[in-house]
């Protein structure tokens, strides 16, 4: 059986091979959707942005420079697309988003059980409470697995500002977790 690596898929997509697109995006599907879901604050907007990102990525593939890390390129596109959409929406409403997590409960799936664990729920809710800039940096680091330098490039913010956002977000999350466990 031929082992089709991620690099092969990226190369094929760059050459316009549509058959390689689905398997490649499947690798990043969950991370990308989680990022958009947490950034946008609701499933409908996240799904719209997921579709937008797929279209933009496929269209931009001929211009993709293989020297750049694919995941960073992908998440930069997703980030820009989502931020544009959110700017168009009422940003104020978005900033005040504090919806309950949509995690499902009562499943026999061990993976879902893990996701539904108390700590995960707390973290998910805590991330929702972060201000937009801090949430943006935190999610790009956690879901996008981007380095802070890459995040600085994607968000067009100075590196020190990005690191400062990360410090504040981690500090806040830690504080929320401590409070939750103390109760």
């Amino acid at each position: 059986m031929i082992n089709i690596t991620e690099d092969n898929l990226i190369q094929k997509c760059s050459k316009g091979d549509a058959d390689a697109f689905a398997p490649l995006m499947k690798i990043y599907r969950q991370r990308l959707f989680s990022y958009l879901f947490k950034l946008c604050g609701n499933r409908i907007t996240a799904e719209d942005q997921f579709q937008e990102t797929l279209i933009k990525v496929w269209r931009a593939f001929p211009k993709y420079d293989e020297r750049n890390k694919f995941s960073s390129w992908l998440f930069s596109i997703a980030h820009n697309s989502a931020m544009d959409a959110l700017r168009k929406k009422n940003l104020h409403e978005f900033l005040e988003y504090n919806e309950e997590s949509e995690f499902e409960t009562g499943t026999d799936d061990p993976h879902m059980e893990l996701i539904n664990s108390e700590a995960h729920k707390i973290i998910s809710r805590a991330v929702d409470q972060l201000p937009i800039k801090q949430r943006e940096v935190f999610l790009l680091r956690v879901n996008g697995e981007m380095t802070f330098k890459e995040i600085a490039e994607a968000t067009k913010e100075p590196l020190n500002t990005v690191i400062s956002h990360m410090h504040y977000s981690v500090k806040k999350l830690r504080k929320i977790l401590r409070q939750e466990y103390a109760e």
Partner: protein
Amino acid sequence: MPNENRMTCEKFNRDLFLYIDTGLPVEQIEFYSEHLKYCSGCRKLLEETEELLALSSTALGEDIGDAKFEFMVSKTLAKKQPGLVKKFFLPEKNKKENSFRLGKIALSSVLVIIAVVVSLLIVKPYAVPAEITNSGMMDWNGEEFNLKISELSDELNGDEWNEEEAELLFINERINQLLK
């Protein structure tokens, strides 16, 4: 010594994420690694942060579902690439790109104006040179035309015909007189 330690701890706290990212110079990473061996406070901070990031990456694991994913991919691939002209002028969602599009339109307009001016200035191989039409050098044709025009106008006026008819009438009268 404790002061020096505290300063290193503060620096490590500041550089924590760059240390995790290995985004620091090698010497700096080695220095902090050495510091971590004996500083339990910094070690705890590093472990807790890494644990939180790892936990977050699994906690934030939402999925879109197979059916929706397949549908979205097929929709993406079915979408036609915009044509070159459309790509060039298509309004972008991004404000910066939109102003860039206006620049493209302005540039195109300037190019069209330049093309029109150049086409007016260029001498066309089969065109009658301006100096000929302007200075009456079309006499080689003009004379012929003028002659024909005057003939036609004479014919229309009927002067010449009248003269000929009068001459014929005169000759006719003379012949009649001679015959008498």
